[in-house]
């Protein structure tokens, strides 16, 4: 496993060939030469590490073997047995963070999609200020992710933050002073995480659905209107079916991003996320780099990948079949 491809410098495309033989050779292999840099880099950064990671999950790769990992003893399925033993602490922690991640993903994706769809559909029709509003809505997506999340962390501060000031002082919905709620520890931290994630992701859904709406031919709406379809009927019978292919991809992308999300909780809570908001990526990161047991971390990562592959395969099978039936 130590024999790895070195990062080859991107080869320059061949210059114009002189002889006829060179030209023939070039014609056959040109597409491969063009692809070579991309293939080498994808292999180096994605595919080889993934295979290595799968290999690591079968090793007893503790801190003693980090520098010299070829000598790490083989663990077989021990790492998997350990993290999947739900009667022990490690298994229970993994299960709990898995459920937190499932709930987080469902809440965040549903809300981001809902806001994105509502925003895009309601802005389908021309009105004054539409361009400016569209620009404003895209700002959270353009903002560097950590700047956005740090700002939310500031707003969620218990004593000095904007959130408690609005909810407590202005609206009177929550206690103030010593009774003010905490947002970054305890049960509330889950919802803080969801709100920040929706704030970041809904503009992406908005952008994609907006692009999808532009591809719907106007004649379809005109034909529906001639048939006497009202606004809601047009939305149900024209907009929704025409957006289905876009939504199919959008849901999948949002699901994968949100389920793998590391950045939002890491920046929002710092090194130690509260257990109510400890997503699975954070859990794997913390248990790997705190104990330097990369074998266990890899086993959990492989389980995560298998779960995502399974969900993606089932999702694509179900949604593609429904598409052909309708």
């Amino acid at each position: 496993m130590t024999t790895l491809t070195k990062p080859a410098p991107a080869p320059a495309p061949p210059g114009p060939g002189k002889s006829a033989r060179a030209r023939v050779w070039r014609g056959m292999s040109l597409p491969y030469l063009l692809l070579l840099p991309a293939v080498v880099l994808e292999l180096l950064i994605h595919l080889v590490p993934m295979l290595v990671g799968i290999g690591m999950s079968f090793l007893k790769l503790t801190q003693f073997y980090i520098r010299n990992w070829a000598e790490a003893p083989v663990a077989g399925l021990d790492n998997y047995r350990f993290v999947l033993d739900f009667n022990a602490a490690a298994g229970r922690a993994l299960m709990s963070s898995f459920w937190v991640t499932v709930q987080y993903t469902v809440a965040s994706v549903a809300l981001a999609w809902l806001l994105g769809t509502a925003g895009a559909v309601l802005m389908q029709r021309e009105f004054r200020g539409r361009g400016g509003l569209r620009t404003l809505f895209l700002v959270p997506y353009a903002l560097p992710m950590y700047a956005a999340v740090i700002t939310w962390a500031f707003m969620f501060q218990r004593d000095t933050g904007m959130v408690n000031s609005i909810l407590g002082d202005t609206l009177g919905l929550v206690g103030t002073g010593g009774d003010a709620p905490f947002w970054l520890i305890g049960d509330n931290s889950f919802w803080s995480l969801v709100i920040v994630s929706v704030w970041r992701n809904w503009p992406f859904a908005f952008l994609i659905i907006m692009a999808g709406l532009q591809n719907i031919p106007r004649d379809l709406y005109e034909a529906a209107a001639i048939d006497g379809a009202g606004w809601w009927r047009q939305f149900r019978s024209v907009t929704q079916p025409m957006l289905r292919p876009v939504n199919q991809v959008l849901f999948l992308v949002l699901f994968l991003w949100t389920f793998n999300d590391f950045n939002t909780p890491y920046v929002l809570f710092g090194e130690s996320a509260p257990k109510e908001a400890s997503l699975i990526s954070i859990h794997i990161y913390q248990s790997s780099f705190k104990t330097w047991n990369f074998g266990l971390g890899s086993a959990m990562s492989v389980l995560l990948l298998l779960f995502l592959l399974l969900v993606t395969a089932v999702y694509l099978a179900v949604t593609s079949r429904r598409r052909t039936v309708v």
Partner: protein
Amino acid sequence: MSEPRWVSWARRLVLGFLVLFTVLPLYAMLASSLKPLSDVQGDWHWLPTNLTFEPFIEIWSTIPLAKYFVNSLIVSGTATVLSVTIAIFAAYAVSRFEFRGKNLFSITVLSTQMFPGILFLLPLFLIFVNIGNATGIVLYGSRLGLIITYLTFSLPFAIWMLAGYFASIPKELDEAAKVDGCGPLGALIRIVIPASTPGIVAVAIYAFMTAWGEVLFASVMTDSDTRTLAVGLQEYSTQVDVYWNQVMAASLVVSVPVVAGFLLLQRYLVAGLTAGAVK
């Protein structure tokens, strides 16, 4: 399309909510960056008691922000240029040639998008450390390691989107160029690239944003000399007293280049998505 009255009310209500939701954090960032320290240590105030630009000066000395800024610029800039260049060649191959393994390539590249980052973070960390031990090429802790990591993050989307874009350019234009004596690469450089400027610009913004905002790999793969803004800004929160006015000022400063670039070029991104991706 004529619409009933409830739709226009729903529009006001929903869009009003979305404006509020979007603006509140942006306002918190801007207003707090103009406040003296005492203002951000007590109750939340909507307006600064006295307007000050001090935080924008102090951020450069509280943490080595300038160094992080330069690191981020070098890493993100280089990763963007390389990613776009490599993607142009790959997308040209996919859109203009028939060859064995084309589908395999497309599927593999796209599926790397779904791998959890954490899965290849641990092996990549070990691979970089071991490449360094074996060959002396320093990838762990260096900008080079981060650059090649980040460029592969944006590569799949860049290839996918540019392939769609290139496919929309009529092949007759390539043929005409070939009649004039251009080879396939001449046609790429003289015809296809100029005709796809919007798509290339959109992909470049995406690649730059991806690199500029990445946290996970930056937090593991950098040391104190090569740290990027994404990790550097978090140093504020490890201080005993968090200078929130400075944190907000720094957040604003690091956001301005990407947000300005994005908003200036957003129509290219929307056009690129409409032409390439959403089909």
